C-alpha cells in the first residue's frame, strides 16, 4: 500500500527484483487485492439497491397504512395523521419542467455559441470556465441569492403581469415573496451548466468534415447548424435535457428556500407551492411520530423512484451517443468511464480541421 508514495517507478525496482516469476507470496497478495477491488466495486453497485431498499423499509408502515392513495391525496396534517403528496408531486413536476425548458433553450444556445466559432478561442475558454464555475456554486448559495436578488428583481414584472393578464390562470395570483416563479427561474440557472456542458460535447463531437461539406455546398452557418450539426448531435442534446431533468427533480435547497413550502396546488406561477425534496428538507427536523417519519420516507421513496427512472432513461440515451466523456461534462458531472474511441476520433478530426483551416 505504501508503493503509491514512490512517484517514480525507478525507485521501487531493484536489480534482481525483475525478470523473474512472481513469488508465491506475491501471487497471494495479488489474489487478495483483486478480490478487494471486486468486493468494493460490487459494494458500490449494491449501494443503489441498498438506498432503495432501506428507504422502502422505513416507508413500509406508511405504505401499509396509506397505500397508493398517498400520492393522490392533497392533505398533509401530522396532527390528524393525514398524509398526501399530490401538491408536492405537482410542484416538483411543474418547477422541474419549467426550469428544464428554460435551461434547454439557453443551454443549447450556449452550446452552439461555444462550438460554432462565433467568438475567438480565448473568449470561448473564458465562457467555458464561467459555466463550470456556475456549476460549482453550492445550491444553498443560489437559494440565498434567489431570496435577496431574484425575488426583488422579478416581483415588479410578475405583479405587472398579474394586474394586466390576471385572467390567465398562470398569472392569477400576485407574487408576494416566495413562489413557483423564482424557484423555477433559479432552478433553470442551476441546471443550465449540465445541459450546456453535455450538449457542447455532443456538438463538438460532430465530424468537422460533415460541417465543412455543408458549408461547401453553399449552406449558411445556421442552415448548417439546424440542418446538419444539431440533428447529428440530437441524441446528446436530448440526453443532456433528460439528465438535467433528473437534477431538477432532486434539487433541494434552492427550492426549499424559494418555493414557499405551502401545501397548495395552484395553477398560478406566482403562488407559493411545494416540492417533494423541499417537503423532506422542511418536515424532517420536526417529524415526531413514527408514522410521520414513515410518511416522509414514503415521499422520499416516490422521489427516489422518479429520479431513478429519469436518470436511467437519460443514461440509456447517452450510452449510445458518441459524446460520452469529453472535457466539459467531466468537469461538471464528474467523470466518465467512456473515453475510448469516439472521443479520440473527435479530437483527431478537430485537429485535422485546424490543419485544413491553416
Amino acid at each position: 500500500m505504501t508503493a503509491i508514495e514512490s512517484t517514480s517507478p525507478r525507485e521501487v525496482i531493484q536489480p534482481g527484483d525483475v525478470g523473474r516469476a512472481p513469488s508465491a507470496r506475491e501471487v497471494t497478495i495479488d489474489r487478495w487485492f483483486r478480490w478487494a477491488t471486486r468486493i468494493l466495486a460490487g459494494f458500490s453497485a449494491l449501494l443503489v439497491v441498498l438506498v432503495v431498499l432501506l428507504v422502502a423499509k422505513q416507508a413500509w408502515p406508511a405504505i401499509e397504512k396509506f397505500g397508493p392513495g398517498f400520492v393522490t391525496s392533497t392533505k398533509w396534517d401530522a396532527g390528524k395523521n393525514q398524509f398526501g403528496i399530490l401538491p408536492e408531486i405537482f410542484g416538483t413536476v411543474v418547477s422541474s419542467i419549467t426550469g428544464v425548458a428554460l435551461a434547454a433553450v439557453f443551454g443549447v444556445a450556449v452550446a452552439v455559441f461555444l462550438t460554432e466559432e462565433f467568438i475567438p478561442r480565448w473568449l470561448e475558454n473564458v465562457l467555458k470556465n464561467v459555466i463550470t464555475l456556475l456549476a460549482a456554486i453550492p445550491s444553498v448559495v443560489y437559494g440565498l441569492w434567489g431570496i435577496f436578488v431574484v425575488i426583488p428583481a422579478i416581483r415588479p414584472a410578475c405583479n405587472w403581469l398579474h394586474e394586466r393578464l390576471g385572467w390567465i390562470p398562470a398569472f392569477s395570483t400576485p407574487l408576494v415573496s416566495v413562489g413557483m416563479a423564482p424557484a423555477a427561474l433559479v432552478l433553470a440557472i442551476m441546471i443550465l451548466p449540465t445541459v450546456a456542458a453535455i450538449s457542447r460535447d455532443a456538438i463538438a463531437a460532430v465530424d468537422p468534415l460533415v460541417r465543412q461539406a455543408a458549408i461547401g455546398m453553399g449552406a449558411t452557418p445556421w442552415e448548417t447548424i439546424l440542418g446538419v450539426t444539431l440533428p447529428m448531435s440530437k441524441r446528446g442534446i436530448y440526453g443532456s435535457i433528460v439528465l438535467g431533468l433528473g437534477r431538477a427533480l432532486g434539487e433541494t435547497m434552492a427550492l426549499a428556500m424559494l418555493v414557499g413550502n405551502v401545501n397548495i396546488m395552484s395553477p398560478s406561477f406566482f403562488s407559493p407551492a411545494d416540492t417533494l425534496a423541499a417537503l423532506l428538507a422542511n418536515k424532517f427536523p420536526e417529524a415526531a411520530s413514527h408514522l410521520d417519519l414513515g410518511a416522509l420516507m414514503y415521499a422520499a421513496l416516490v422521489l427516489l423512484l422518479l429520479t431513478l427512472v429519469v436518470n436511467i432513461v437519460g443514461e440509456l440515451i447517452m450510452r449510445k451517443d458518441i459524446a460520452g466523456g469529453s472535457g466539459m461534462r467531466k468537469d461538471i458531472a464528474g467523470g466518465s468511464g467512456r473515453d475510448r474511441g469516439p472521443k479520440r476520433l473527435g479530437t483527431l478530426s478537430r485537429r485535422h480541421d485546424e490543419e485544413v483551416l491553416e
Partner: protein
Amino acid sequence: MTAHVQPTPILGPAAEPQEIDLAELDHSLRRPRTLFSYCLSVLCSILALVAAVPLVSVLLMLVVRGGKRLNLALLTQLPPAAGMVGGGIGNAIVGTLLVIFVGGVLSIVIGVFAGVYLAEINREGALGGLVRFCARLLTGLPSILAGVFAYTTVVLWTGRFSPLAGGIALSLLMLPTIILTTEESVRSVGAEMREAAIGMGATQTQMIWQILLPTALPGILTGILLALARGAGETAPLLFTLTFSDFWLKGHLMEPTASLAVLIYNFSKSPFQNQKEIAWAASLVLVLIVLALTLGGQALSLRARRMMGAPR
C-alpha cells in the same frame, strides 16, 4: 447569374445538367437566407450572454455583501444568537472541514478500488458494466436522498446526529465521481507501460500499485478534488445527519455539529440583519472553499493531460 453544372455520373446514365443560381451562394444580408442566419447568430449570442448574467450577479453579491463581514472575528467566533451583534462562523468552518474529511476518506478508499476494478480487473465484463452503470446512476442521486439514506442507516442505528452520519451521506455523493475519474485516469495509462511491467514479471497488483496508480495520480487527484468540492457545497444531506450546533466541537465524532451550508440555510430565514450578513459572509467562505478545490482539480488535470501527452 446562373451556371450549368454537369454532375459527374457515378453509376448509371449521366444526369440532366442542372441550373444553379450562383447568386444563392452570395453571402449578402439582402438575401433572406443570409439575413435569417445573421439574425439567428445575434439571437444565439444574446441568449448565451444573458445566461452569463446570473453568474456575474451571484459573484458580485458574494463579494459585495459577503466581503463586508469577512474578517478574523468572522472566522474565529461562534454564530450569534438571534438579535445579537457580532459573532462568526468558526465552528461551522471546522464542522464543514471535518465532514468533508470523513466523507472523503470513505469515498476515496472505496472509489479508488472500485475504479481500479473497472479499469484493470474487469475491463469489459458484465459486473464491470453493472458497476459502471450504477456509478453513473449514483451521480444523479438527489443529494437529499443521500441524507435520508444516512439517516435510516447511521442516525437511527447510533441514535444521534453526528459527523460520521454526515460523512457517510456525503461519501455517497462523492463516490461516483471518484470511481469514474479513477477508471478514466488508470485506463489512459499507455499500454506499453503495462506490457513492460508484466514483461518484467510483475503481478497485476504490483503493476497497479507501482506503475498505473503513480502515473494516473494527477487524474485521480483531480477527481477527488472535484468530488470534495461537490461534497463541501452540499446542504440537504446534512440537514438530517449533522443538524446544527451553536458550539465548538467537543472532540468526539458523535454529536450534532455545525456546518457552513446549514448555517447559511438557517440564517437565510432569519429576520435579523446581523444573521443575514453572516449568511452572506459564510456563503463567500463556502464558495471560496469550493472554488479552491475545483480550480486545484482543474490545474491538476491540465498537468495530467500534459504529462500523458494525450491530446484532448
